[in-house]
Protein backbone atom coordinates (compact mmCIF):
# COMPACT_ATOMS: atom_id res chain seq x y z
CA UNK A 1 0.00 0.00 0.00
CA UNK A 2 2.56 2.54 -1.08
CA UNK A 3 1.73 6.05 -2.11
CA UNK A 4 2.38 5.15 -5.73
CA UNK A 5 0.20 2.08 -5.89
CA UNK A 6 -2.86 3.46 -4.11
CA UNK A 7 -2.66 7.24 -3.90
CA UNK A 8 -6.40 7.78 -4.19
CA UNK A 9 -7.38 5.22 -1.58
CA UNK A 10 -4.67 6.63 0.67
CA UNK A 11 -5.89 10.20 0.38
CA UNK A 12 -9.50 9.09 0.84
CA UNK A 13 -8.63 7.13 4.00
CA UNK A 14 -6.62 10.06 5.35
CA UNK A 15 -9.49 12.47 4.75
CA UNK A 16 -12.01 10.07 6.26
CA UNK A 17 -9.91 9.72 9.42
CA UNK A 18 -9.45 13.48 9.53
CA UNK A 19 -13.18 14.16 9.35
CA UNK A 20 -13.96 11.41 11.86
CA UNK A 21 -11.30 12.90 14.13
CA UNK A 22 -13.15 16.21 14.06
CA UNK A 23 -16.11 14.41 15.56
CA UNK A 24 -18.26 14.32 12.43
CA UNK A 25 -20.73 11.48 12.05
CA UNK A 26 -20.14 8.54 9.68
CA UNK A 27 -22.84 9.70 7.24
CA UNK A 28 -21.65 13.29 7.06
CA UNK A 29 -18.10 12.10 6.42
CA UNK A 30 -19.29 10.04 3.47
CA UNK A 31 -21.19 13.00 2.06
CA UNK A 32 -18.13 15.25 2.46
CA UNK A 33 -15.85 12.69 0.81
CA UNK A 34 -18.24 12.31 -2.13
CA UNK A 35 -18.47 16.08 -2.41
CA UNK A 36 -14.67 16.38 -2.57
CA UNK A 37 -14.44 13.57 -5.12
CA UNK A 38 -17.14 15.17 -7.27
CA UNK A 39 -15.45 18.57 -7.13
CA UNK A 40 -12.08 17.05 -8.07
CA UNK A 41 -13.50 15.14 -11.05
CA UNK A 42 -15.56 18.11 -12.26
CA UNK A 43 -12.57 20.45 -11.93
CA UNK A 44 -10.42 17.98 -13.83
CA UNK A 45 -12.97 17.92 -16.65
CA UNK A 46 -13.42 21.68 -16.76
CA UNK A 47 -9.74 22.46 -16.42
CA UNK A 48 -8.90 20.06 -19.21
CA UNK A 49 -11.20 22.04 -21.53
CA UNK A 50 -8.75 24.95 -21.36
CA UNK A 51 -6.11 22.73 -22.93
CA UNK A 52 -8.58 21.26 -25.43
CA UNK A 53 -9.54 24.69 -26.73
CA UNK A 54 -5.89 25.50 -27.39
CA UNK A 55 -5.26 22.08 -28.94
CA UNK A 56 -8.25 22.14 -31.25
CA UNK A 57 -7.57 25.69 -32.45
CA UNK A 58 -3.99 24.76 -33.13
CA UNK A 59 -4.74 21.51 -34.95
CA UNK A 60 -7.64 22.86 -37.02
CA UNK A 61 -5.48 25.88 -37.80
CA UNK A 62 -2.70 23.65 -39.10
CA UNK A 63 -5.17 21.59 -41.13
CA UNK A 64 -6.44 24.78 -42.75
CA UNK A 65 -2.92 25.94 -43.49
CA UNK A 66 -2.90 28.53 -40.73
CA UNK A 67 -0.62 28.78 -37.72
CA UNK A 68 -3.28 29.01 -35.06
CA UNK A 69 -2.72 30.78 -31.73
CA UNK A 70 0.98 31.46 -31.26
CA UNK A 71 1.35 34.84 -29.56
CA UNK A 72 0.31 34.43 -25.93
CA UNK A 73 2.80 32.26 -24.08
CA UNK A 74 4.92 29.47 -25.60
CA UNK A 75 3.14 28.04 -28.68
CA UNK A 76 0.15 30.16 -27.75
CA UNK A 77 -0.57 27.92 -24.77
CA UNK A 78 -1.84 30.80 -22.65
CA UNK A 79 -4.32 31.93 -25.30
CA UNK A 80 -7.34 30.22 -23.65
CA UNK A 81 -6.53 31.98 -20.36
CA UNK A 82 -6.46 35.33 -22.11
CA UNK A 83 -9.77 34.48 -23.78
CA UNK A 84 -11.22 33.41 -20.44
CA UNK A 85 -10.26 36.69 -18.76
CA UNK A 86 -11.68 38.63 -21.68
CA UNK A 87 -14.97 36.77 -21.87
CA UNK A 88 -15.55 36.78 -18.12
CA UNK A 89 -15.44 40.59 -18.09
CA UNK A 90 -17.85 40.93 -21.01
CA UNK A 91 -21.41 42.05 -20.62
CA UNK A 92 -24.09 39.36 -20.59
CA UNK A 93 -26.88 40.65 -22.82
CA UNK A 94 -30.46 39.66 -22.05
CA UNK A 95 -32.58 40.25 -25.15
CA UNK A 96 -35.86 42.05 -24.47
CA UNK A 97 -38.02 39.45 -26.15
CA UNK A 98 -36.28 36.37 -24.76
CA UNK A 99 -37.90 34.04 -22.27
CA UNK A 100 -35.40 35.02 -19.59
CA UNK A 101 -35.55 32.10 -17.10
CA UNK A 102 -35.21 29.54 -19.87
CA UNK A 103 -32.62 31.70 -21.60
CA UNK A 104 -30.38 31.49 -18.53
CA UNK A 105 -31.13 27.85 -17.72
CA UNK A 106 -30.32 26.53 -21.22
CA UNK A 107 -26.49 26.84 -21.19
CA UNK A 108 -26.30 25.77 -17.56
CA UNK A 109 -28.35 22.67 -18.34
CA UNK A 110 -26.14 21.76 -21.28
CA UNK A 111 -22.90 22.14 -19.36
CA UNK A 112 -24.21 20.45 -16.21
CA UNK A 113 -25.47 17.46 -18.20
CA UNK A 114 -22.08 16.88 -19.77
CA UNK A 115 -20.19 17.24 -16.51
CA UNK A 116 -22.67 14.83 -14.95
CA UNK A 117 -21.63 12.08 -17.40
CA UNK A 118 -18.23 12.08 -15.72
CA UNK A 119 -19.78 10.77 -12.53
CA UNK A 120 -19.88 7.21 -13.86
CA UNK A 121 -16.68 7.05 -15.95
CA UNK A 122 -14.26 4.58 -14.33
CA UNK A 123 -11.12 6.71 -14.27
CA UNK A 124 -8.92 4.23 -12.40
CA UNK A 125 -9.19 0.52 -11.60
CA UNK A 126 -10.90 -0.52 -8.37
CA UNK A 127 -11.51 3.07 -7.23
CA UNK A 128 -14.64 5.07 -7.86
CA UNK A 129 -18.21 4.23 -8.44
CA UNK A 130 -19.41 0.91 -9.76
CA UNK A 131 -22.76 2.20 -10.92
CA UNK A 132 -24.85 -0.70 -12.18
CA UNK A 133 -26.86 1.20 -14.83
CA UNK A 134 -24.01 3.47 -15.94
CA UNK A 135 -24.35 2.83 -19.69
CA UNK A 136 -28.01 3.82 -19.65
CA UNK A 137 -27.22 6.76 -17.36
CA UNK A 138 -24.74 8.24 -19.84
CA UNK A 139 -27.36 8.16 -22.61
CA UNK A 140 -30.09 9.59 -20.40
CA UNK A 141 -27.96 12.41 -19.02
CA UNK A 142 -26.30 13.10 -22.36
CA UNK A 143 -29.71 13.72 -23.91
CA UNK A 144 -30.13 16.67 -21.53
CA UNK A 145 -27.27 18.44 -23.31
CA UNK A 146 -29.29 18.39 -26.52
CA UNK A 147 -32.30 19.57 -24.56
CA UNK A 148 -30.24 22.58 -23.45
CA UNK A 149 -29.55 23.45 -27.08
CA UNK A 150 -33.24 23.17 -27.98
CA UNK A 151 -34.17 25.35 -25.00
CA UNK A 152 -31.60 27.97 -26.00
CA UNK A 153 -32.88 28.09 -29.57
CA UNK A 154 -36.47 28.42 -28.49
CA UNK A 155 -36.06 30.86 -25.61
CA UNK A 156 -33.91 33.32 -27.57
CA UNK A 157 -36.99 34.39 -29.55
CA UNK A 158 -34.87 34.75 -32.64
CA UNK A 159 -35.75 33.17 -35.96
CA UNK A 160 -32.26 31.89 -36.68
CA UNK A 161 -32.07 30.37 -33.23
CA UNK A 162 -35.48 28.76 -33.66
CA UNK A 163 -34.52 27.17 -36.99
CA UNK A 164 -31.42 25.86 -35.25
CA UNK A 165 -33.54 24.39 -32.47
CA UNK A 166 -35.75 22.59 -35.00
CA UNK A 167 -32.72 21.21 -36.79
CA UNK A 168 -31.38 20.03 -33.46
CA UNK A 169 -34.58 18.15 -32.74
CA UNK A 170 -34.37 16.38 -36.10
CA UNK A 171 -30.72 15.53 -35.54
CA UNK A 172 -31.15 14.38 -31.96
CA UNK A 173 -34.14 12.13 -32.50
CA UNK A 174 -32.35 10.52 -35.42
CA UNK A 175 -28.84 9.93 -34.14
CA UNK A 176 -29.96 8.87 -30.69
CA UNK A 177 -31.15 5.56 -32.18
CA UNK A 178 -27.85 4.30 -33.67
CA UNK A 179 -25.93 5.49 -30.59
CA UNK A 180 -28.14 3.53 -28.25
CA UNK A 181 -28.09 0.45 -30.48
CA UNK A 182 -24.30 0.58 -30.84
CA UNK A 183 -23.89 0.90 -27.07
CA UNK A 184 -25.95 -2.26 -26.68
CA UNK A 185 -23.17 -4.31 -28.29
CA UNK A 186 -20.51 -3.83 -25.55
CA UNK A 187 -23.22 -4.18 -22.89
CA UNK A 188 -24.22 -7.48 -24.44
CA UNK A 189 -20.64 -8.74 -24.81
CA UNK A 190 -19.79 -7.85 -21.21
CA UNK A 191 -23.15 -8.81 -19.76
CA UNK A 192 -23.32 -5.74 -17.56
CA UNK A 193 -24.26 -2.08 -17.81
CA UNK A 194 -21.65 -0.98 -15.26
CA UNK A 195 -18.83 0.80 -17.07
CA UNK A 196 -16.32 -0.55 -14.54
CA UNK A 197 -17.64 -4.05 -15.32
CA UNK A 198 -17.39 -3.47 -19.06
CA UNK A 199 -13.76 -2.39 -18.72
CA UNK A 200 -12.95 -5.41 -16.57
CA UNK A 201 -14.57 -7.73 -19.12
CA UNK A 202 -12.38 -6.44 -21.95
CA UNK A 203 -9.59 -8.99 -21.94
CA UNK A 204 -9.62 -8.25 -25.64
CA UNK A 205 -10.63 -4.69 -26.45
CA UNK A 206 -14.15 -4.50 -27.84
CA UNK A 207 -12.88 -2.56 -30.83
CA UNK A 208 -11.55 -5.95 -32.01
CA UNK A 209 -14.85 -7.68 -31.30
CA UNK A 210 -17.07 -4.92 -32.61
CA UNK A 211 -15.18 -2.46 -34.82
CA UNK A 212 -18.31 -1.51 -36.77
CA UNK A 213 -20.27 -0.83 -33.59
CA UNK A 214 -17.45 1.49 -32.51
CA UNK A 215 -17.60 3.31 -35.84
CA UNK A 216 -21.36 3.72 -35.59
CA UNK A 217 -21.03 4.93 -32.01
CA UNK A 218 -18.36 7.42 -33.03
CA UNK A 219 -20.23 8.83 -36.04
CA UNK A 220 -23.55 9.08 -34.23
CA UNK A 221 -21.89 10.71 -31.22
CA UNK A 222 -20.19 13.32 -33.39
CA UNK A 223 -23.66 14.06 -34.75
CA UNK A 224 -25.05 14.32 -31.22
CA UNK A 225 -22.37 16.83 -30.29
CA UNK A 226 -23.25 18.74 -33.46
CA UNK A 227 -19.76 19.03 -34.87
CA UNK A 228 -18.76 19.20 -38.51
CA UNK A 229 -19.89 17.44 -40.74
CA UNK A 230 -23.11 17.44 -38.68
CA UNK A 231 -23.02 21.07 -37.57
CA UNK A 232 -26.29 22.08 -39.20
CA UNK A 233 -27.46 23.48 -35.90
CA UNK A 234 -24.84 26.21 -35.96
CA UNK A 235 -24.22 26.58 -39.69
CA UNK A 236 -22.64 30.03 -39.83
CA UNK A 237 -23.40 30.62 -43.49
CA UNK A 238 -27.08 29.68 -43.19
CA UNK A 239 -28.39 30.60 -39.77
CA UNK A 240 -25.58 32.89 -38.54
CA UNK A 241 -24.67 30.99 -35.39
CA UNK A 242 -27.79 29.03 -34.68
CA UNK A 243 -28.93 28.49 -31.12
CA UNK A 244 -26.33 30.73 -29.45
CA UNK A 245 -26.83 33.77 -31.67
CA UNK A 246 -28.25 35.89 -28.83
CA UNK A 247 -25.80 34.73 -26.18
CA UNK A 248 -22.85 36.75 -24.99
CA UNK A 249 -20.31 36.82 -22.17
CA UNK A 250 -20.14 33.88 -19.78
CA UNK A 251 -23.47 32.45 -20.95
CA UNK A 252 -21.96 31.99 -24.41
CA UNK A 253 -18.73 30.68 -22.92
CA UNK A 254 -20.73 28.02 -21.10
CA UNK A 255 -21.96 26.70 -24.45
CA UNK A 256 -18.44 26.87 -25.81
CA UNK A 257 -16.99 24.92 -22.90
CA UNK A 258 -19.87 22.47 -23.05
CA UNK A 259 -19.17 21.76 -26.72
CA UNK A 260 -15.50 20.95 -26.16
CA UNK A 261 -16.18 18.96 -23.03
CA UNK A 262 -18.89 16.98 -24.81
CA UNK A 263 -16.51 16.10 -27.63
CA UNK A 264 -13.91 14.86 -25.15
CA UNK A 265 -16.52 13.01 -23.08
CA UNK A 266 -17.55 11.15 -26.24
CA UNK A 267 -13.91 10.14 -26.63
CA UNK A 268 -13.83 9.11 -22.98
CA UNK A 269 -16.93 6.90 -23.33
CA UNK A 270 -15.59 5.44 -26.56
CA UNK A 271 -12.34 4.60 -24.80
CA UNK A 272 -14.14 3.02 -21.86
CA UNK A 273 -16.60 0.98 -23.91
CA UNK A 274 -14.44 -0.08 -26.86
CA UNK A 275 -10.76 0.64 -26.17
CA UNK A 276 -10.38 -1.08 -22.84
CA UNK A 277 -10.69 1.97 -20.57
CA UNK A 278 -7.86 2.01 -18.04
CA UNK A 279 -6.48 -1.32 -19.23
CA UNK A 280 -2.80 -1.39 -20.09
CA UNK A 281 0.50 -2.82 -18.85
CA UNK A 282 0.86 -2.29 -15.12
CA UNK A 283 -2.51 -0.63 -14.64
CA UNK A 284 -3.65 -3.18 -12.07
CA UNK A 285 -0.65 -2.56 -9.85
CA UNK A 286 -0.49 1.20 -10.27
CA UNK A 287 -4.01 2.62 -10.70
CA UNK A 288 -2.65 6.04 -11.57
CA UNK A 289 -1.17 4.53 -14.74
CA UNK A 290 -4.69 3.43 -15.65
CA UNK A 291 -5.83 7.03 -15.56
CA UNK A 292 -3.04 7.98 -17.94
CA UNK A 293 -3.90 5.11 -20.33
CA UNK A 294 -7.57 6.08 -20.31
CA UNK A 295 -6.68 9.69 -20.92
CA UNK A 296 -4.45 8.84 -23.89
CA UNK A 297 -7.11 6.59 -25.45
CA UNK A 298 -9.81 9.21 -24.97
CA UNK A 299 -7.51 11.79 -26.47
CA UNK A 300 -6.89 9.65 -29.55
CA UNK A 301 -10.64 9.30 -30.15
CA UNK A 302 -11.07 13.03 -29.58
CA UNK A 303 -8.26 13.76 -32.02
CA UNK A 304 -9.97 11.71 -34.73
CA UNK A 305 -13.06 13.84 -34.10
CA UNK A 306 -11.03 17.02 -34.59
CA UNK A 307 -9.48 15.51 -37.69
CA UNK A 308 -12.91 14.75 -39.17
CA UNK A 309 -13.98 18.27 -38.27
CA UNK A 310 -11.03 19.74 -40.11
CA UNK A 311 -11.53 17.53 -43.15
CA UNK A 312 -15.18 17.10 -44.10
CA UNK A 313 -17.68 19.70 -45.33
CA UNK A 314 -21.15 20.08 -43.87
CA UNK A 315 -23.85 17.61 -44.90
CA UNK A 316 -27.23 18.61 -46.24
CA UNK A 317 -30.10 17.81 -43.88
CA UNK A 318 -31.74 15.16 -46.09
CA UNK A 319 -28.37 13.46 -46.59
CA UNK A 320 -27.88 13.49 -42.85
CA UNK A 321 -31.29 11.99 -42.10
CA UNK A 322 -30.93 9.37 -44.84
CA UNK A 323 -27.49 8.39 -43.59
CA UNK A 324 -28.88 7.85 -40.11
CA UNK A 325 -32.14 6.04 -40.82
CA UNK A 326 -31.25 4.12 -43.97
CA UNK A 327 -27.65 3.27 -43.22
CA UNK A 328 -26.57 3.49 -39.59
CA UNK A 329 -29.75 2.19 -37.94
CA UNK A 330 -30.18 -0.97 -40.07
CA UNK A 331 -26.46 -1.65 -39.80
CA UNK A 332 -26.59 -1.28 -36.02
CA UNK A 333 -29.51 -3.73 -35.86
CA UNK A 334 -27.61 -6.26 -38.00
CA UNK A 335 -24.54 -5.91 -35.78
CA UNK A 336 -26.61 -6.43 -32.67
CA UNK A 337 -28.02 -9.68 -34.04
CA UNK A 338 -24.52 -10.72 -35.13
CA UNK A 339 -23.10 -10.07 -31.67
CA UNK A 340 -25.91 -11.96 -29.94
CA UNK A 341 -25.90 -15.03 -32.18
CA UNK A 342 -22.17 -15.37 -32.84
CA UNK A 343 -21.16 -14.80 -29.23
CA UNK A 344 -23.50 -17.59 -28.14
CA UNK A 345 -21.94 -19.99 -30.66
CA UNK A 346 -18.44 -19.13 -29.42
CA UNK A 347 -19.04 -19.99 -25.77
CA UNK A 348 -16.06 -22.29 -25.34
CA UNK A 349 -13.53 -20.15 -27.21
CA UNK A 350 -10.56 -18.32 -25.70
CA UNK A 351 -10.92 -14.50 -25.54
CA UNK A 352 -8.66 -13.98 -28.56
CA UNK A 353 -10.32 -16.73 -30.61
CA UNK A 354 -13.69 -15.16 -29.89
CA UNK A 355 -12.32 -11.73 -30.77
CA UNK A 356 -10.86 -12.84 -34.08
CA UNK A 357 -14.03 -14.62 -35.22
CA UNK A 358 -16.05 -11.51 -34.35
CA UNK A 359 -13.52 -9.36 -36.20
CA UNK A 360 -13.68 -11.54 -39.31
CA UNK A 361 -17.48 -11.42 -39.39
CA UNK A 362 -17.44 -7.65 -38.80
CA UNK A 363 -15.01 -7.13 -41.66
CA UNK A 364 -17.23 -9.32 -43.87
CA UNK A 365 -20.37 -7.33 -42.97
CA UNK A 366 -18.49 -4.07 -43.48
CA UNK A 367 -17.27 -5.11 -46.93
CA UNK A 368 -20.80 -6.18 -47.93
CA UNK A 369 -22.33 -2.92 -46.74
CA UNK A 370 -19.72 -0.80 -48.50
CA UNK A 371 -20.19 -2.78 -51.73
CA UNK A 372 -23.95 -2.29 -51.48
CA UNK A 373 -23.59 1.44 -50.80
CA UNK A 374 -21.26 1.79 -53.79
CA UNK A 375 -23.68 -0.03 -56.07
CA UNK A 376 -26.54 2.13 -54.82
CA UNK A 377 -24.55 5.30 -55.38
CA UNK A 378 -23.59 4.27 -58.92
CA UNK A 379 -27.18 3.41 -59.78
CA UNK A 380 -28.35 6.77 -58.47
CA UNK A 381 -25.69 8.56 -60.50
CA UNK A 382 -26.79 6.73 -63.64
CA UNK A 383 -30.41 7.63 -63.05
CA UNK A 384 -29.61 11.28 -62.36
CA UNK A 385 -26.41 12.15 -64.21
CA UNK A 386 -26.68 15.84 -63.33
CA UNK A 387 -27.94 16.69 -59.92
CA UNK A 388 -29.16 20.07 -61.13
CA UNK A 389 -32.83 19.38 -61.87
CA UNK A 390 -34.74 22.30 -60.41
CA UNK A 391 -37.17 21.36 -57.70
CA UNK A 392 -35.35 18.16 -56.92
CA UNK A 393 -33.54 19.45 -53.87
CA UNK A 394 -34.56 21.85 -51.15
CA UNK A 395 -31.93 24.32 -52.34
CA UNK A 396 -32.70 27.85 -53.48
CA UNK A 397 -31.41 28.44 -57.01
CA UNK A 398 -31.28 31.76 -58.79
CA UNK A 399 -33.25 31.83 -62.08
CA UNK A 400 -30.95 30.90 -64.96
CA UNK A 401 -30.64 33.25 -67.95
CA UNK A 402 -32.59 31.89 -70.95
CA UNK A 403 -29.57 31.85 -73.32
CA UNK A 404 -27.53 29.75 -70.94
CA UNK A 405 -30.34 27.34 -70.31
CA UNK A 406 -30.62 26.62 -74.04
CA UNK A 407 -26.91 26.04 -74.52
CA UNK A 408 -26.97 23.42 -71.76
Amino acid at each position, binding site marked *: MGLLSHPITLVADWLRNLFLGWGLSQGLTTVLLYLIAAIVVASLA*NGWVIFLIWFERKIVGRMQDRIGPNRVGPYGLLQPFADLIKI*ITKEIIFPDKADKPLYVIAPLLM*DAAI*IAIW*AVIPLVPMVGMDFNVAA*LYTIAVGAFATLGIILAGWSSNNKFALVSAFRTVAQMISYE*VPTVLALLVPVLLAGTMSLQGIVEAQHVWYIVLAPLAFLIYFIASVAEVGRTPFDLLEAESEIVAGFHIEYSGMLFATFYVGDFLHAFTIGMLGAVLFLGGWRGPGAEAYPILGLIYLWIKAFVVYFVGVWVRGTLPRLRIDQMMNFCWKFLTPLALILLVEAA*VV*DRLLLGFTPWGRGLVHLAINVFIGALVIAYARAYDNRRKRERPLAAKPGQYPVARPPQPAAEAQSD
Partner: protein
Amino acid sequence: MNNWLYIAIFLFVAVLFPTALVVVGLLLGPKRPNPIKTDTYECGVQTWGETWVQFKIQYYLFALVFLVFDIEVAFLYPWAVAYKALPLFAVLEGVLFIVLLTAALIYAWRKGALEWS
Protein backbone atom coordinates in the same frame (compact mmCIF):
# COMPACT_ATOMS: atom_id res chain seq x y z
CA MET B 1 -27.67 3.39 -2.03
CA ASN B 2 -24.26 5.04 -1.75
CA ASN B 3 -23.95 5.10 -5.53
CA TRP B 4 -27.11 7.13 -5.86
CA LEU B 5 -25.91 9.49 -3.12
CA TYR B 6 -22.71 10.04 -5.10
CA ILE B 7 -24.70 10.69 -8.28
CA ALA B 8 -26.92 13.18 -6.46
CA ILE B 9 -23.91 15.04 -5.07
CA PHE B 10 -22.24 14.96 -8.46
CA LEU B 11 -25.32 16.40 -10.15
CA PHE B 12 -25.32 19.20 -7.60
CA VAL B 13 -21.63 19.93 -8.29
CA ALA B 14 -22.23 19.71 -12.05
CA VAL B 15 -24.92 22.40 -11.82
CA LEU B 16 -22.79 24.46 -9.43
CA PHE B 17 -19.79 24.73 -11.77
CA PRO B 18 -21.32 26.55 -14.75
CA THR B 19 -23.62 28.54 -12.44
CA ALA B 20 -20.65 29.84 -10.48
CA LEU B 21 -18.88 30.86 -13.69
CA VAL B 22 -21.92 32.70 -14.99
CA VAL B 23 -22.39 34.47 -11.63
CA VAL B 24 -18.75 35.60 -11.71
CA GLY B 25 -19.32 36.80 -15.26
CA LEU B 26 -22.38 38.74 -14.14
CA LEU B 27 -20.44 40.36 -11.30
CA LEU B 28 -17.36 41.28 -13.35
CA GLY B 29 -19.03 42.31 -16.58
CA PRO B 30 -20.57 45.73 -17.24
CA LYS B 31 -24.35 46.12 -17.26
CA ARG B 32 -25.29 48.83 -19.73
CA PRO B 33 -28.28 47.61 -21.71
CA ASN B 34 -29.90 49.83 -24.30
CA PRO B 35 -32.83 49.21 -26.66
CA ILE B 36 -30.57 48.62 -29.67
CA LYS B 37 -28.35 46.19 -27.82
CA THR B 38 -31.14 44.13 -26.33
CA ASP B 39 -33.11 44.01 -29.57
CA THR B 40 -33.37 40.72 -31.44
CA TYR B 41 -30.27 40.25 -33.55
CA GLU B 42 -31.06 39.39 -37.13
CA CYS B 43 -27.98 40.69 -38.92
CA GLY B 44 -28.97 44.32 -38.54
CA VAL B 45 -32.35 43.88 -40.18
CA GLN B 46 -35.44 44.83 -38.18
CA THR B 47 -37.16 41.68 -37.02
CA TRP B 48 -40.56 41.18 -38.55
CA GLY B 49 -43.52 39.29 -37.18
CA GLU B 50 -43.75 36.69 -34.47
CA THR B 51 -40.97 34.17 -33.88
CA TRP B 52 -42.95 31.60 -31.94
CA VAL B 53 -45.23 30.67 -34.80
CA GLN B 54 -46.57 27.26 -35.70
CA PHE B 55 -43.77 25.62 -37.60
CA LYS B 56 -44.13 22.95 -40.23
CA ILE B 57 -42.98 19.90 -38.36
CA GLN B 58 -41.99 17.74 -41.28
CA TYR B 59 -40.17 15.27 -39.09
CA TYR B 60 -43.33 14.31 -37.25
CA LEU B 61 -43.03 10.82 -38.68
CA PHE B 62 -39.36 10.66 -37.74
CA ALA B 63 -40.37 11.51 -34.20
CA LEU B 64 -42.87 8.65 -34.17
CA VAL B 65 -40.31 6.15 -35.50
CA PHE B 66 -37.78 7.45 -32.99
CA LEU B 67 -40.23 7.00 -30.14
CA VAL B 68 -40.87 3.39 -31.11
CA PHE B 69 -37.17 2.62 -31.38
CA ASP B 70 -36.16 4.33 -28.16
CA ILE B 71 -38.75 2.48 -26.12
CA GLU B 72 -37.95 -0.88 -27.71
CA VAL B 73 -34.25 -0.34 -27.09
CA ALA B 74 -35.00 0.31 -23.44
CA PHE B 75 -36.46 -3.22 -23.42
CA LEU B 76 -33.34 -4.62 -25.08
CA TYR B 77 -30.97 -3.38 -22.36
CA PRO B 78 -32.12 -5.82 -19.65
CA TRP B 79 -31.93 -8.60 -22.24
CA ALA B 80 -28.34 -7.63 -23.08
CA VAL B 81 -27.38 -7.55 -19.40
CA ALA B 82 -28.89 -10.97 -18.77
CA TYR B 83 -27.47 -12.34 -22.05
CA LYS B 84 -24.72 -14.46 -20.45
CA ALA B 85 -27.19 -16.30 -18.23
CA LEU B 86 -29.89 -16.80 -20.84
CA PRO B 87 -30.55 -20.15 -22.55
CA LEU B 88 -30.22 -20.26 -26.32
CA PHE B 89 -33.99 -20.10 -26.70
CA ALA B 90 -34.19 -16.74 -24.87
CA VAL B 91 -31.33 -15.35 -26.94
CA LEU B 92 -33.13 -16.30 -30.13
CA GLU B 93 -36.31 -14.70 -28.80
CA GLY B 94 -34.36 -11.47 -28.33
CA VAL B 95 -33.11 -11.79 -31.90
CA LEU B 96 -36.69 -12.31 -33.06
CA PHE B 97 -37.62 -9.08 -31.25
CA ILE B 98 -34.85 -7.22 -33.10
CA VAL B 99 -36.03 -8.73 -36.40
CA LEU B 100 -39.52 -7.42 -35.66
CA LEU B 101 -37.98 -4.00 -35.01
CA THR B 102 -36.20 -4.20 -38.34
CA ALA B 103 -39.47 -5.13 -40.04
CA ALA B 104 -41.03 -2.01 -38.52
CA LEU B 105 -38.14 0.06 -39.85
CA ILE B 106 -38.52 -1.43 -43.33
CA TYR B 107 -42.28 -0.79 -43.20
CA ALA B 108 -41.70 2.86 -42.28
CA TRP B 109 -39.09 3.10 -45.01
CA ARG B 110 -41.39 1.63 -47.70
CA LYS B 111 -44.22 3.88 -46.55
CA GLY B 112 -41.97 6.86 -47.23
CA ALA B 113 -41.86 7.99 -43.60
CA LEU B 114 -38.09 8.34 -43.82
CA GLU B 115 -38.07 10.74 -46.77
CA TRP B 116 -37.04 14.26 -45.90
CA SER B 117 -38.95 16.55 -48.22
